[in-house]
C-alpha cells in the first residue's frame, strides 16, 4: 500500500505563560513525538482517553495549528512527480499555494458549534469551494446540490439555517462541507459522539459509503472503541501524547500487546448480555501532560510495571508484521494479564 501521510517525531507543545512578563514557564506536551503512517484508502482509528492528544494530532495534520517539531510528509495523488511535501515546514500562505488545503479536510466533533448559525446551508457548503475555485453562482449551486445529495439531503434543505436541522442532519452538512473541495484525506474528530445511537449508525454508514465512492482516506479520532471497530481497518492507541500500540483493528482486539490497550479494550461496556468481561480496572487517573512521568508514561497506572519501566522509555517496536507496541514487557503481557485477572 502506498503511504499518504507520514508523521515523523511530531510534537505539539502548548506554552503555559506566567510570571511578571508572561514568559513561558512550562508547556503542555499534548503530542510528544509520534510516528505514524497513514496509507492511501484506509481508515485509521486513533483512540485514547480525553487529553491524550488525539485531536491535537488531527489538527496538526490539517495544519489548523503549527506543530512544535517533527515532520508531516504528505504524498499527493497527482503531485509534482510524487515527491513528498512536508506540511509542518510550510507557512500558511504556501499551504494554499500548493493546493494542500483543499486536499486535507476535517469534520469536527459537535456540528452545533462547528456550523456558523448565521449562514445558510448553501453558503456554509459553498464557502470552501469559493475559497479554492472561481465558479459562477449557477455552477456553485449545482455543486452544492450535488454535495447535498451525496450526504443524503435534498434541495429543500439548501435555504435553511443550521438550527433548523436535527443533530444527525447537521453532521451531514458538516461532512458535505468537508468533502466540498474534493479532498483525499479527512480527519474525523469524534464525528458521532454528539449524536444519538440511532443517528450514529446513519452517519457511520454514510461515512463508509463516501469512502468507497470518493476513495477517501480517514483518520478517525474517537474514544468510542466499538465505533472505531466498526469503521476502521487499523487502530492506533494513544496515551499521554505517545502512541503505545498500533495494529490492524482485528489483531488489536484479539491480542493486544500493551497493558493499556488491554485495559482500554476490557473497559468497553458491551451491549451484549452473554458477554461477561474480565475487567482490568486501572487505578488512578491520567497524569498531567505538563509533567508527564519519566520513562514509560504508563508506569504510574500500569499493574505490571517493573524497575526498567521507571528508567528506560520503551520504543514502538514491531511484535509481528503490521503490529507495533511500546512496552518493555510486551511479550509477557498476555501471560501476566491471565495470571492477575484471569482469562478475558
Amino acid at each position, binding site marked *: 500500500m502506498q503511504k499518504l501521510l507520514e508523521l515523523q517525531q511530531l510534537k505539539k507543545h502548548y506554552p503555559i505563560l506566567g510570571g511578571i512578563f508572561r514568559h513561558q514557564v512550562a508547556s503542555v506536551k499534548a503530542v510528544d513525538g509520534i510516528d505514524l503512517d497513514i496509507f492511501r484508502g484506509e481508515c485509521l482509528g486513533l483512540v485514547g*482517553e*480525553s487529553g491524550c492528544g488525539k485531536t491535537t494530532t488531527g489538527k496538526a495534520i490539517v495544519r489548523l495549528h503549527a506543530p512544535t517539531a517533527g515532520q508531516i510528509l504528505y504524498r499527493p495523488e497527482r503531485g509534482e512527480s510524487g515527491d513528498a511535501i512536508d506540511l509542518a515546514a510550510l507557512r500558511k500562505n504556501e499551504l494554499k499555494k500548493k493546493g494542500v488545503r483543499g486536499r486535507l479536510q476535517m469534520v469536527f466533533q459537535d456540528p452545533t458549534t462547528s456550523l456558523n448559525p448565521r449562514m445558510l446551508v448553501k453558503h456554509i457548503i459553498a464557502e470552501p469551494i469559493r475559497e479554492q475555485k472561481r465558479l459562477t453562482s449557477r455552477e456553485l449551486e449545482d455543486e452544492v446540490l450535488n454535495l447535498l445529495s451525496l450526504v443524503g439531503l435534498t434541495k429543500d434543505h439548501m435555504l435553511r439555517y443550521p438550527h433548523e436541522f*436535527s*443533530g*444527525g*442532519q447537521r453532521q451531514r452538512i458538516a461532512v458535505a462541507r468537508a468533502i466540498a473541495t474534493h479532498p483525499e484525506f479527512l480527519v474525523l474528530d469524534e464525528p458521532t459522539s454528539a449524536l*444519538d*445511537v*440511532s*443517528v*450514529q*449508525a*446513519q452517519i*457511520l*454508514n454514510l461515512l*463508509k459509503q463516501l469512502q468507497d465512492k470518493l476513495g477517501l482516506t480517514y483518520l478517525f479520532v474517537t*474514544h468510542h*472503541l*466499538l*465505533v472505531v*471497530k*466498526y469503521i476502521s481497518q487499523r487502530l492506533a492507541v494513544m496515551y499521554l501524547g505517545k502512541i503505545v500500540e498500533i495494529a490492524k483493528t482485528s489483531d488489536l*482486539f484479539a491480542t493486544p500487546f500493551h497493558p493499556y490497550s488491554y*485495559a*482500554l479494550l*476490557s*473497559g*468497553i*461496556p*458491551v*451491549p*451484549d*448480555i452473554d*458477554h461477561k468481561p474480565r*475487567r482490568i*480496572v*486501572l*487505578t488512578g*487517573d*491520567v497524569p498531567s501532560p505538563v509533567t508527564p512521568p519519566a520513562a514509560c508514561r504508563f508506569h504510574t497506572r500500569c499493574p505490571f510495571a517493573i524497575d526498567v519501566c521507571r528508567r528506560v522509555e520503551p520504543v514502538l517496536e514491531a511484535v509481528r508484521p503490521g503490529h507495533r507496541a511500546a512496552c518493555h514487557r510486551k511479550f509477557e503481557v498476555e501471560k501476566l494479564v491471565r495470571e492477575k485477572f484471569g482469562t478475558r
Partner: protein
Amino acid sequence: MVEFKLRNDPKATPRSGKASGATFEVILNAEPETRNPEPGTRNSELGTMRLLETQNLVTNFYTYEGVVNALNRVSLVVDHGTTFGLVGESGCGKSVFVLSIMRIVQSPGKIEDGKVLVFFNDDAGATGVDLLRQSEAYMQRIRGDRISMVFQEPNAALNPIMTIGDQVAESFLFHQQKELCKTVLAELDAPDCQIIRPLKTLQRAFYGMAAQHPDATALKLCDRVPVLRRWRRPMKRHALRRAVNIIGKLGIPNPEEVVSQYPHNLSGGMKQRIVIAIALACSPVLLIADEATSNLDVTIQAQILNLLKRLKQTEIASILLITHDLGVVAETCDRVGVMYAGNLCEVADVGDLFHHPRHPYTRALLEAVPRLAQEGELKSIEGSVPNLVDPPPGCRFHPRCPHAMELCRKRFPDQVEVGPNHTVSCYLYTDRPRPEA
C-alpha cells in the same frame, strides 16, 4: 451540592399539586420515618416488594414554541433490591422522569398528572406515599436521605467555592442532625472530656435542645449571634469525620487530605466519586444515577461502574440508572425500561430484553449499536426523534416504525404483558399474532 441547591431554592420545584387542581396533604414537621407507626406490614402480599411506582406520570414544559409533552403517561415499577436501567436517546424524557420523581423539575416544566408512589420499608400498607401530594418540607427530608441522586456532570453538581468535606458533611448536617447531636452529647458525657466546666454545661444545653427540637427558635436566634454561633462546631467536626469515612469507602486515596480540597483540585473520576459519596451519605433506599458515567473516559467509567456494582452488594438497596449506553445497561442492570419520545415502550428483565426485544424501537436500537463481533453493515433507524412540541399522533414511533399500521397513527397503545415481567406498548402484541423477530 445537591442539598445546597434544593434547600435554598424552593422555587426550583413546581408546586405540582396546585397545578393539577389538587390540594396538598401538608404534613409539617412529620418525620418520614415515624409517619406510619406500624412497620412489618409491608406490601408483602405482592410477592416482590415494590419500592417505587409511577402511574400515568405526565410532565409538560410550557415553552414559547408550545407545550412540550415530555412525559406521556409513564407507568413504571421499580422493585426493592434491583438495578433498574432506563435507556433512550437524548430528549426522550429519561431525565425529566427522574426529576419528576424527585419533584425538582425546573421552571417552565410542570408535573401535570399521575402518581409517584414510594414504598419505604417503614411505610405501612400497599398504598405507599404519593410524593406528588406531599409538602415541600417532606420532600426536602426525603431528597438526599431516602432517595438521592447522582448527576451527570460532576463539575456542575459540585459547588466550586466549598471544600469537598463541607459538601459531603452538609448531607449529614441536614438529615442526621439528631444523631450527630447525640454523639456530641455522648462525647461531652465521656469521662475523658477535656472541655472546662461552664463551657461544657453550655454545650450540653445547646445539644440537649438540638437533639429534641432541631428547628427550635432559640437555636435559630443563637445562629445569628457571632460568638454563640460557634455551638455548631463540634457537630460539624463529627459530620466531617463521617464524610472522611464515606469518602474513604469509595476508594479515594487519602480522604483526610481530599476533604480540605476544592473540586478543581480533583480529576473528573474523583469528582464523580465525591458526587456519589454525597448521594450515599445517608444510605438511601434508592439511588438515582442520571448518566453518571457518560462524560467519563473508558477506563474511569470502568472504575465507576465497578464501584456501583460493589456498592450495590454492600450499601444501597436499589439503583435507578439513567443512561443512553446499552453496554452499561447490559452490564449493570437487572431490569430495563426503554423510552422513546416521552413514552415508555418496553420494560423487561435485562436478559429477556436483549435476547427477545419485542418493541420495534427496541429491536432497531439494539441493531443500531456497533457490537464487538460486528459483521456486515449497521442497521440504522431512518428519520430522527420527533419534536415533542408537536408529536406524531398515536404511537410516537410510528413515522419511523417498519411495522406501522393504521391503528398506530390514531391511538397510543396500552401496555400489554407479553411474558413474565415483560410489558410492551405496541399494537403488534395486542390482538394480532406477533411477527417473527
